[in-house]
């Protein structure tokens, strides 16, 4: 063969490995080899799902909600406050809370779940008058509502003593805060329940009113309210004034904060890193695209099969149903082979004048009568395709009989 074959790459399989598995171990090994990437990918995805599920925030939606009777709600505290004549108004929106506070000069604003507050909400809240109790505030909230206080750490629970002069704390006594934030507060602030000098409860005056920061909301929940001095602490902190505006903000609507595009949300460093990765990709592309030397070209010989014309003619016969021509060719071929066997001159094969003689000689050596043989060798063109196939078979039989006789 003189045609050029492209360079073939073979599977990098071991030389001793047969192409078909012979033992179960080999079959298993082969299946593992072919499926390992799929299996590993699925396994990696499963691990990722488990990790993501473990990392899911465990804070329940009704946490510190004064309308919720659930274990993490604060309905008990709200009802006790109500019984004591301190009305609790629940709002779920910062501007509503501020307007309530504006209408009611003697009220405490309790802000829970403050991580849900947007920058705009904090701006509105910072204009509110009256005392504020912040439960589990983060640094962002502290910056706006309790300037000077800094988030220090989050420490697991242990019983903590008041350690300060604040009435609410001294009355409540020791409290189990569970998991709680601790804060760094300025010297002017009252600092209570400290662990290693970091207080869990901070009260400081801000612009003529007091802001109280409580590091854990757990003592206020329905579940824990009855323990230790939790109820006292809650009531004294929240119920100092004649009414309470309890702000538990709803989740801000998606994108409702500021119309930020995805690009603005991505940190600048990540953007630059992505740019650098694009550069790296371009470099890799340059590396892969640089060939080791030019492509070698070569004129190839034509590939023409010699039998193509014959095959083409066969298809033309078939397309045109040229039974007459096909039958002629087959009969001529058969006669050509039969005549020498009969001892007749070769020239008589294609000569119609010898037809009688040929048929008679054949009839003497084959088990068919002269009419049938004459019809097969010199007869009219077959009427349909089936007859053509039958004629071919008959000619074959005839030839075989004559050869054997």
């Amino acid at each position, binding site marked *: 063969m003189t045609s050029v074959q492209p360079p073939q790459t073979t599977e990098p399989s071991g030389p001793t490995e047969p192409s078909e598995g012979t033992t179960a171990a080999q079959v298993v090994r082969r299946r593992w080899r072919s499926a390992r990437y799929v299996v590993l990918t699925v396994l990696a995805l499963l691990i990722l799902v488990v990790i993501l599920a473990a990392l899911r925030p465990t804070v329940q939606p009704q946490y510190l909600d004064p309308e919720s009777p659930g274990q993490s709600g604060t309905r008990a505290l709200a009802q006790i406050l109500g019984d004591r004549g301190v009305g609790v108004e629940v709002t779920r929106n910062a501007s509503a809370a501020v307007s309530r506070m504006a209408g009611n000069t003697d009220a405490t604003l309790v802000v829970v779940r403050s991580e849900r507050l947007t920058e705009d909400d904090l701006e509105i809240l910072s204009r509110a008058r009256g005392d504020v109790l912040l439960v589990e505030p983060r640094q962002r909230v502290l910056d706006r509502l309790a300037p000077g206080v800094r988030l220090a750490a989050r420490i697991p629970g242990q019983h903590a003593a008041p350690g300060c002069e604040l009435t609410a704390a001294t009355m409540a006594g020791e409290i189990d805060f569970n998991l709680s934030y601790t804060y760094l507060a300025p010297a002017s602030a009252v600092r209570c329940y400290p662990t290693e000098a970091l207080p869990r409860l901070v009260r400081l005056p801000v612009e003529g009113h007091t802001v109280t920061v409580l590091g854990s909301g757990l003592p206020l929940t329905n579940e824990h309210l009855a323990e230790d001095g939790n109820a006292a602490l809650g009531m004294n902190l929240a119920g100092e004034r004649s009414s309470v505006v309890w702000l538990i903000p709803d989740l801000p609507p998606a994108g409702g904060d500021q119309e930020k595009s995805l690009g603005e949300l991505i940190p600048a460093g*990540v953007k630059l890193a992505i740019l650098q990765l694009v550069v*790296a990709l371009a470099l890799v592309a340059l590396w892969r695209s640089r060939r*080791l030397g030019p492509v070698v070209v070569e004129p190839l010989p034509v590939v023409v099969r*010699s039998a193509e014309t014959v095959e083409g003619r066969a298809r033309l016969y078939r397309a045109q149903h040229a039974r007459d021509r096909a039958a002629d060719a087959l009969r001529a071929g058969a006669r050509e082979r039969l005549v020498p066997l009969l001892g007749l001159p070769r020239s008589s094969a294609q000569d119609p004048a010898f037809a009688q003689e040929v048929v008679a000689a054949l009839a003497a050596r084959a088990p068919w009568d002269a009419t049938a043989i004459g019809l097969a060798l010199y007869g009219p063109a077959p009427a349909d395709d089936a007859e053509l196939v039958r004629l071919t078979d008959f000619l074959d039989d005839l030839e075989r009989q004559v050869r054997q006789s």
Partner: protein
Amino acid sequence: MALTGRLGLLAALTAIVLIFVPSWWALLAVEGVLLALVIIDLALAGNVRSLRLHRAGDTNVRLGETAKVSLTLENLGRRRVRASVRDAWPPSAAAAPRSVDLAIPAGERRRLDMTLTPTRRGDRVAATVTVRSMGPLGLAARQLSRPAPWTVRVLPAFPSRRHLPAKLARLRELTGQHVALIRGQGTEFDSLREYVDGDDVRSIDWRATARRADVVVRTWRPERDRRIYLVLDTGRTAAGRVGDIPRLDCSMDAALLLGALASRAGDRVDLLAYDRRVRARVEGTSRTDLLTAMVQAMAPLEPELIESDAAGMVSTLMARVRQRCLIVLLTELNTAAIEEGLLPLLPQLTSRHLLMIAAVSDPRVSEMATSRGDLAAVYDAAAAERARAERQRLTAELRKYGVEVVDAAPDDIAPALADAYLALKAAGRL
């Protein structure tokens, strides 16, 4: 110049730096460092231009066998060259290995051995040698392609040479050199020798017997020093493939066997390859060089996709050959080509020379002629019968002009042609 994957990896890793130092200046600095590293690497890479390339190895290889060609790289520069070297050959040369990593210290040389297993007959010319010289950091490389000329001629495989011993044995029988008590056949007087039992009594030379006390017989030998002109038709019909090889390659194989046999038989053999002009010619070579010369002349021949010019071929032959000779035309029995081209010119040729036409028949046609079963097969058979009938008619017509026709399948054509030649020789018709 070429970059490496290591540079891409390094660039990707520096992206981490940018996450922690998010500034455009940092980006600029990172790119600057990368660029500087690349420039340093390029500057320190071994000089490709100072490499000198030397070649050695095979210049001829039979089709199907493996040639060895070595490339020696001599480093005349002052720095060590650490490089990937690719010796590029055309695809049909099937050169291996594709590329080799070499380290050539200054002033030393390294040899790269290539093996070529060509898949096709003809001349294979080495394309280029490409050297990619890596820098010490492995981040960038200098790359240069340089010529290192070398040609490997791929000769015809000549698979029918296995028939040669048998045919030579037949030839020895004819010439009487065979170890058998048979009279050398032929028509040319050879010598006189003493009668031994079993000699044909008709060959007793009574005159010589009368002069001596012993009975003396004449021995005969076939004619020697006859001229045989092999003509390869390289026109379009030679391009058709029978089985998986071009008809031309079958013809070459047959021509080689006949040439080898005839030169041993003491005949002078010439070769002409012709389509519309002379493609190759071997004339007047000595007996010992004949096969080499023929093989070398045949190696680069490719079939041309044009109709052969029979008139041109006949006139070329007539101009070159004065004395009577055997012209062996290796072509295809194509009705149109022969009837329109060669037939009208046959009297010219046959009046002075003996013409033998050797044609390779396609086994596929025979296979089709016996196909049975469904309608498509029957039509195939009909078309094949028709083609066969045409071929037979053409053969008969050519024989009427006194032309010897050898028509055989690809595997049989070489021995069949040799047999036909031996038959002519035995009959003293050369």
